[in-house]
């Protein structure tokens, strides 16, 4: 499937970042991954990759939620570094509920 990139502002909180991802996935896409990135304005921020879907995901993706801690026994959908509210966080987990 085709993928595309969008910027997730490094100024956002984890809650805002989660909502931004949920809002994009509501358009029939799936969060693929994210990495720290320097944008065209030389600002250190996040570059997220989304996958375009043409079929409803089965099972449903669930609501994405970013967290600093990984609850015991939970497998994250993604783990990686992010810029959150202007600071680099070494490990952010994307959980789905």
């Amino acid at each position, binding site marked *: 499937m085709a993928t595309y990139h969008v910027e997730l502002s490094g100024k956002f909180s984890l809650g805002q970042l989660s909502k931004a991802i949920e809002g994009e996935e509501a358009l*029939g896409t799936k969060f693929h991954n994210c990495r720290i990135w320097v944008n065209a304005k030389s600002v250190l921020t996040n570059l997220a990759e989304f996958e375009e879907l043409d079929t409803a995901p089965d099972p449903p993706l669930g609501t994405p939620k970013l967290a600093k801690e990984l609850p015991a026994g939970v497998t994250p959908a993604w783990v990686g570094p992010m810029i959150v509210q202007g600071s680099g966080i070494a490990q952010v987990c994307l959980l789905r509920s």
Partner: protein
Amino acid sequence: MKMTTMHCGVLEPHPCSLLAARLLVGLALLLLASGCSTLRGSPTRYLPTAEVVSTINLVPQDLANLQAATSEVDRNLLQNKAVAVIDLQFNQFVRDLVADRSDASAAAAGTTLGASTAGAFVESVKAKTNYALFAAGVVGAVGIIDKSYFYEKTVPALVAAMGAARASVLVRIRGSQRDSIGAYDGTAALADLEEYYSAGTVLAAIAEITARADSDKKASLDEVRALEVPSDAEITRRKSISGAIFAINDSSMDKGKKALAQLGLPEQKSVKEVRAALLKALRPPTPERIGLVEKALKDNGLLK
């Protein structure tokens, strides 16, 4: 401000304009001499970096002990000590890097401005010419400074790239520090420290930028869109629209095709292509686009 110099003769500068010219040239020279330290944009550091680094007292034996560490606690303590020193010195390096450029350009800009303004104030043709020559000379000197400092707009990008490279290594270090000493031994910890230090150098930044150039090229060409934070109501609306599109099947494909036609989009042959084209029409998710797709779905009985 009243332009008293307008009443003066062409060849005789007014005393006030001479005074203004002298003040401006003096200011320019002061800026050059002082390096414009008051315009650095940051207050005096709360504690001098060198003193803190000296007090932390990282010595070669610490690194040797790290290499030979036999417990996770010792390994992490020694590694963190070195990380702290590397961080402090990196931040000082960045401050110096930015301050050097700021000082050079502030002094040069101040001088050029002063000289040009002085030239404009003085009515004497000869004096004006001299000031213009002085300004040209300063601009020429700035060219040399720029060649030496080679970083007009580059510094922020280099600093950001160093930050990205350092963050990448630090992520690995923090992750590895949770591992047992057997899985992440002192030698590996020392190698990571070396890489962490190297990531904070200009050479590493250039390498980082070069390595990412290709992968970022596509993203740049696509004019990366910054996501916004939608409201809960907007998310629910989007989900109902995309849900209606996903629900298009063989029996409702004609309705989907009509919706595409209503949106002025090319006809698609398969159900998947119809769905994909309608979903793509939602992006970027401006209120207008979402409204148009929503209306087309409703008009064709695909969404209530």
